[in-house]
């Protein structure tokens, strides 16, 4: 990786700035190493490090806030809920795709009080707009392509569409998806092949294919049977490891494969 000459030195903050909040008791100093990229000045991304005081109970998102609010306001990243619900802040934390708002500092601290460095980089396989902010459009394009909405034919029921608890259970796991792209951007096939649907799109197709109230299973299975569909998956389980919602992504993909193989949902 390239390193910029001036900015790689940790910017020391301890008591050096008046606008910074007091360092709380029990805080440790950690080095936050960020992969930065500003399309207006940089031709390539480069690493920049900051020294940030952190409590073990802080989340990685707090470090990013600290950098943005007190050290460098130009740092760009996406976050909204800060509670693992909106799926905005997927990033590579120490090389692993996670939500910054769900990873605690105490789980990243080096053993026996050794200095801790936390590296943060944008998720892979999607175009970087700035710093940790990536263009999610290709990801959502694949999502839309699998028709992630209820498809029915015939007359609407007068009341609700009834479903048994067992039928609901069938696709329960895949309803939990928050479209964070942790899975798709951890998939080696997605990195290399521009048009593979990616695990997240398949998860969301699964959610409707196995819904007893939905009648569009055939259309979606047809779409996923194609050259860029489920058969591209190598069963490497990267996606399952990455999912912050604990969805068994690879299993869902296998279920779609099985439905295609035996022509049965």
């Amino acid at each position, binding site marked *: 990786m390239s390193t910029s000459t001036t900015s790689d030195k940790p910017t020391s903050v301890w008591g050096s700035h008046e606008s910074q909040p007091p360092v709380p008791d029990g805080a440790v100093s950690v080095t936050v190493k960020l992969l930065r990229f500003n399309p207006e000045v940089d031709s390539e991304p480069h690493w920049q490090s900051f020294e940030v005081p952190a409590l073990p109970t802080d989340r990685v998102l707090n470090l990013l806030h600290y950098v943005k609010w007190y050290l460098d306001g130009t740092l760009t990243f996406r976050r909204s809920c800060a509670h693992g619900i909106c799926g905005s802040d997927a990033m590579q934390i120490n090389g692993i795709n996670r939500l910054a708002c769900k990873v605690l500092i105490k789980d990243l601290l080096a053993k026996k009080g050794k200095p801790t460095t936390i590296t943060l980089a944008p998720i892979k396989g999607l175009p970087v707009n700035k710093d940790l902010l990536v263009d999610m459009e290709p990801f959502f394009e694949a999502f839309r*392509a699998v028709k992630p909405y209820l498809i029915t034919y015939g007359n609407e029921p007068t009341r609700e569409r009834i479903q048994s608890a067992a039928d609901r259970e069938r696709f329960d796991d895949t309803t939990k998806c928050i479209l964070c792209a942790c899975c798709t951007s951890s998939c080696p096939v997605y990195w290399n092949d521009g048009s593979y649907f990616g695990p997240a799109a398949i998860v969301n197709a699964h959610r409707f294919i196995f819904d007893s109230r939905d009648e569009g299973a055939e259309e979606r299975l047809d779409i996923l049977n194609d050259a860029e569909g489920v058969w591209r998956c190598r069963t490497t389980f990267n996606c399952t490891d990455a999912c912050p919602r604990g969805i068994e992504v690879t299993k869902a993909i296998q279920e779609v494969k099985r439905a295609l*193989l035996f022509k049965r949902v």
Partner: protein
Amino acid sequence: MAELALDKPRAPRRPAARRSNFELYSWLFMRLSGMALVVLVLGHLFIMNILDGGVHRINWGFVAGRWASPFWQFWDLSMLWLAQLHGGNGLRTVIDDYARKDSTRFWLKMLLYVSMVLILALGTFVIFTFDPQMDMRD
């Protein structure tokens, strides 16, 4: 903007669906041929390298004797075809994954397909036309 390692531009538009079961069948073929190859190849290695005397007893006569039997002809033929198609299909996916340009992808695949056809043809030819009498001549 310079092209970055991290932002390989994604395909802007999805190619129209091909509506074929080719990928399904090739996926299935990989599983089935893989299972068959475990038996065929391990059996082959066992006979050739371990069973009475191993490699040291292999000579013209040994091969001629084996291929006199249709069973071993069939064994070797299925091993040839399954391994060639299994490996070729695997390489096809590797090329699909790693070739960055469509032209590179096309030429690599052509090279792959031509070499597959050549090896299959040559191997099949040898198995069926092998003449055990040939050793008498010198």
